[in-house]
């Protein structure tokens, strides 16, 4: 750690605008109280959790099954939303058509709609019988059962994370240098060749970020999933639900153990996101939310 250059850096970057202290103080205190403290409370819990609790939690068949379900569905849904996200971002940023603004606005639905409401809606759509079945019946007749299965979980996760990849890709597509594409055209590249050799490398930071973010979001999702998944232990039960159940049974240690694992994954995904944003020097943080 070099101290002198940092000192001169600080001097050079002395604020010319007032208000540094009050705003920083407020921000730090706010973040400290509202975000850091709760996180710390959980992290400190790890001391309280005895090794046998860890062992019991992590070797429980039910927990392991839930982990498989959660990770599997999250990865699958992140993949699906990445593909859909690429399609939507492409269409929104490169074409002109009536309804373009509407399409873009519709993408925010998962951000505004409460997860519980989403869960309820999906339950209604994919229920197999009853007066309100929309897609459930027809899908069942072709052998696809959505409700009460991991497929239902994936559907719920896709709903919740749909805008993520699109928003991550849109700024990058917008800033793509059109003369570079022209050069590709003139040099004889076909549309596919241009897509794979020019666009995909340019978009890859956003693709990675979008996938990671969608994965993390899907992993932690609760409200949208529990109404459609059926929550059958060992089959369609997700980790957040197990944490909630343990909490209801006052098994704080067990709940914390699982929560710590989820927290570690959150941190890891944040690191990946921040690192790739820095590495490629793109302003991807616009597309983060």
């Amino acid at each position, binding site marked *: 750690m070099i101290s002198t250059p940092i000192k001169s850096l600080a001097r050079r970057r002395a604020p010319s605008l007032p208000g540094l202290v009050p705003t920083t103080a407020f921000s730090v205190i706010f973040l400290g109280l509202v975000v850091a403290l709760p996180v710390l409370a959980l992290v400190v819990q790890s001391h309280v959790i005895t090794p046998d609790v860890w062992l019991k939690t992590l070797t429980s068949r039910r927990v392991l099954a839930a982990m498989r379900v959660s990770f599997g569905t999250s990865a699958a849904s992140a993949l699906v939303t990445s593909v859909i996200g690429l399609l939507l971002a492409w269409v929104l940023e490169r074409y002109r058509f009536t309804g373009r603004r509407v399409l*873009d606005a519709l993408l925010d639905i998962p951000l505004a*709609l409460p997860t519980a409401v989403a869960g309820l809606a999906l339950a209604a759509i994919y229920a197999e019988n009853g007066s309100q079945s929309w897609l459930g019946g027809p899908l069942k007749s072709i052998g696809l059962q959505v409700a009460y299965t991991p497929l239902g979980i994936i559907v719920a996760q896709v709903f919740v994370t749909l805008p993520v990849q699109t928003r991550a890709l849109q700024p990058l597509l917008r800033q793509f240098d059109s003369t570079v594409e022209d050069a590709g055209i003139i040099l004889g590249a076909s549309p596919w060749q241009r897509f794979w050799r020019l666009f995909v490398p340019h978009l890859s930071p956003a693709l990675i970020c979008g996938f990671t973010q969608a994965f993390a979001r899907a992993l932690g999702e609760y409200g949208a999933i529990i109404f459609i998944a059926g929550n059958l232990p060992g089959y369609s039960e997700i980790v957040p639900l197990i944490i909630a159940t343990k909490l209801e049974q006052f098994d704080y240690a067990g709940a914390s153990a699982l929560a710590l694992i989820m927290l570690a994954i959150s941190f890891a995904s944040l690191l990946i996101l921040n690192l790739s944003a820095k590495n490629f020097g793109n302003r991807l943080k616009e597309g983060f939310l």
Partner: protein
Amino acid sequence: MKFDASLGVTPEIGAQVFVGSPRIAIKRSTLWFRRSLIGLSFAVVGVALVMPIIAIFGAALNHGFGTYLSSILNAETWGALKLTLLTVALVLPLNTLFALSLAWAINKTRVKGSTWLLILTDLPLTISPVVSGLMIILLYGQRGWLGTQLHALGFDVVYSVPAVILGTLFVTVPYVAKQILPQIEAQGTQLEEAAATLGAGGWQIFKRVTLPSIRLSLVQGVILAAARAAGEFGAVSMVSGHIRGLTTTLPQHVEILYNEYRFTAAYSVASILTLFAVLSLAVKAFFASGLEPAPRPNDPSRRA
């Protein structure tokens, strides 16, 4: 010279200069490719995003408008609505204040360690709401850190309204900030510095230069944060006492109704939240600055 402006097909080679020339065949395939992509996009968004909204209203109105109204207009729903509104009213100003402070500290005055502040701000986004709720309980619960102190003072935070507010606060911290930070960063400090040289004080600069420049993103951020705060479910489920009419928010209320097999009632209450969400989106779209105008007709970036 005819070209289909509504589909963004530009006067490309052959398409309009020489109508009827063999090149039209090739251009048509690009046209159809585009059309199908656009159609596919609408289909996907329609099924994935719009259908659920319609389904809510469909299920709510399943047994007629009268049943719908009676499901909404009762004491329990009203209590839940009040709690939801209270939560939003408390959480929004705090988060907005924070977002503005953070934006100023990071971008206008270049405080060091901003990366950590940003990471902390982003953190709630990546944490499962269930885990967030657990954190609140661990902190404020009767055996928690602050909880034990508060209990001694006679305050029981968890399983009561304050817990709901704290949980929602945690979850919505990033929302306003993420909307305004990119724009503030992109704008730099030139305008504010100019104002400073002209003799304006800190607060004046903020009020008359900075704030107006981020008006749109601020409004959008606040709207999204409000929708999120009203709809928070996972974290609140953990910390609320599920005491009907007292500590249930609207989403809680919906869940309770659903678990009691009172489906129509559940969907009816859900429709209130859905309406709120749709309205928020409409207002946000009205203030839209996010989507740039599409490429000009002859902008090169309109191949395939």
